[in-house]
């Protein structure tokens, strides 16, 4: 039962080792978006790819237990709302007042890191939902 879903043992072992690293790398890219290359979108795609890899290796049940499709859609909507709220602050106020002092620090650049985080949640969950929708559909058909 345990070995039926997903790919072979080798793939599973490698995945166990790398998935966490990929996730951390994605989060790093998101948080460093205003200092070095990267940003919300690229980091979000990396996070989504981490879940995609887990799903390809272990089969869909394992992953869906942790992060179901409904939860993903909910999170994507929430992240989009969050980004809109941040944008609203930019629309109504001057938008770039906070944390202006420390340059080249992790907590600098006003709202940009928060925007990055919101975008990364949207992209990560959203692309995972898209992948799930496409994969589940082909499996139903087979």
């Amino acid at each position, binding site marked *: 039962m345990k070995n039926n879903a997903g790919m072979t043992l080798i793939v599973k072992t490698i995945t166990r080792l790398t998935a966490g690293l990929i996730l951390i790398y994605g989060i790093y890219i998101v948080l460093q978006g205003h200092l070095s290359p990267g940003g919300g979108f690229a980091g979000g795609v990396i996070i989504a790819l981490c879940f995609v890899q887990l799903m390809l290796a272990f089969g869909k049940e394992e992953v869906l237990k942790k992060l179901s499709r409904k939860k993903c*859609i909910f999170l994507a*909507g929430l992240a*989009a*709302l969050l980004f809109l709220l941040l944008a609203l602050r930019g629309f109504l106020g*001057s938008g*770039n007042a906070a944390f202006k002092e420390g340059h080249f620090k992790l907590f600098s650049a006003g709202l940009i890191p928060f925007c990055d985080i919101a975008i990364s949640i949207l992209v990560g969950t959203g692309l995972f939902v898209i992948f799930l929708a496409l994969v589940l559909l082909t499996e139903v058909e087979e």
Partner: protein
Amino acid sequence: MKTANIIPFFVIIPLASAFLITVFKNRPKNFSDFVVILATFSLLLLSLNSLQLLNSSKMIIYKIGGWLPPLGICLVVDGLAGFMLVTVNLTVFLVMVYAIRYMQLYTDKWKFHSLFMLMLAGMNGIIISGDLFNLYVFLEVASICAYALVAFGTEPEDLEAAFKYTIMGSLASLFILLGIGLIYCYVSTLNMADISFALSAKPNGALIGFVSVLFLAGFGLKAALVPFHAWLPDAHSSAPTPVSAVLSGVLIKTLGIYALSRVFFNILGISGNILLVLIVLGMLSMVAGAFLAIVQTDVKRMFAYSSISQIGYIIFAFGIGTPLAILGGLFHLFNHAIFKSLLFLNAGAIEYSTGRRDLRKLGGLGSKLPVTGATSLLGSMSISGIPPLSGFWSKLIIIIASVQAGYIGFAFIAVLVSIVTLAYYLKFQTFAFLGKVDETLTKIKEIPMTMKLSMVILAGICVVAGLMLVPLFRPILKSAADVLSSGTGYRYAVFEALK
């Protein structure tokens, strides 16, 4: 400065409602209906309010984040944009009222509502944008939603039509994007007024010609002008009825005609060659659309071809280029938005109550569906130009303007096409509402109240627009037409408003 603060809400409200609908789905019962009606109604009020504000100042500008234009993006509402905003939001509100009951024929209504609100955000974004690249991005928002909405029924025909539409639409977008890239390389700025300034300092060479061709192909594909029209009949007839109404009514006008006229008249500067191309394209669409429509038996397909024909009228009017012709074209644009969505809603009502769309299998519905019959008669008469109704006045203005400009032959063709239009709408009326009821048609469902309501209001607007043209519509149309006929004067207006 306070008045400008309403402009970004044209994008924020639909986006926020789309996101909210996705978060809550239908948890309180009919939550998405409630949100959508509230949002579209408030947008309608906002757009009317913006018209009010435009009376005192010619142009309202909002600078996002307080950055001055070459650095940031500015939103511009002038006469043309205000006119388009009213047209779009009015149509969408009435269609959404209709869709409350109609969309119960489909599953997962909240997805429909969410996509629809995103599409509305895209259309409003295109209209108020003052930045060329930003216009492209919102164009893509509206297009992607339209692709998905065409396939909303997930029947084989829907998917096929959506695929065709997606391929053509994204090809058009990529042409437009390449054009934007060339312009950026040439002048190194993206703000529309700024581009116009920079271009006026440079000689008119091969580059501008090439970019014009790219934009003409791109926006022409979006507007379904005749050599590029292949996707429209499929997409507009396969989509769910509220979607076809909005696609035919306002989407092709916003994505195609509004963007095209904004780019060519206000940014690149119109020249005699482009006007001639517009006249030829308009004529071709007018004639081909009408003659293809007359042989159709599927109701929605006939209306879709008729859209091509009427778009041809508008483009032809813009191509004449005199202020009167542009005014006529804009009035026809408004009228077409109203009566084409009305006719599509009628077709949807027929489909809702009888379950079929083929003209040969219908008949005698006039007594069974009195409201649909009466409103569709008004819509048909209006589109084919019967005197007191709105369509007559707009066609009359276009034809007078073309005679004034010396295009007598073209004016004659326009009159002939109008007669052909009358012919196929008479065919629709005869086959659907007169005669005997088809024997195989056993049960005819009652049409719900909300659907009747929105059809009646649309028909009422057709009549009012015809009767009240001079007192009510003339000032609005005049200020909208002024924006286009002032041409590259747009840039001075923008920079004056920025100070």
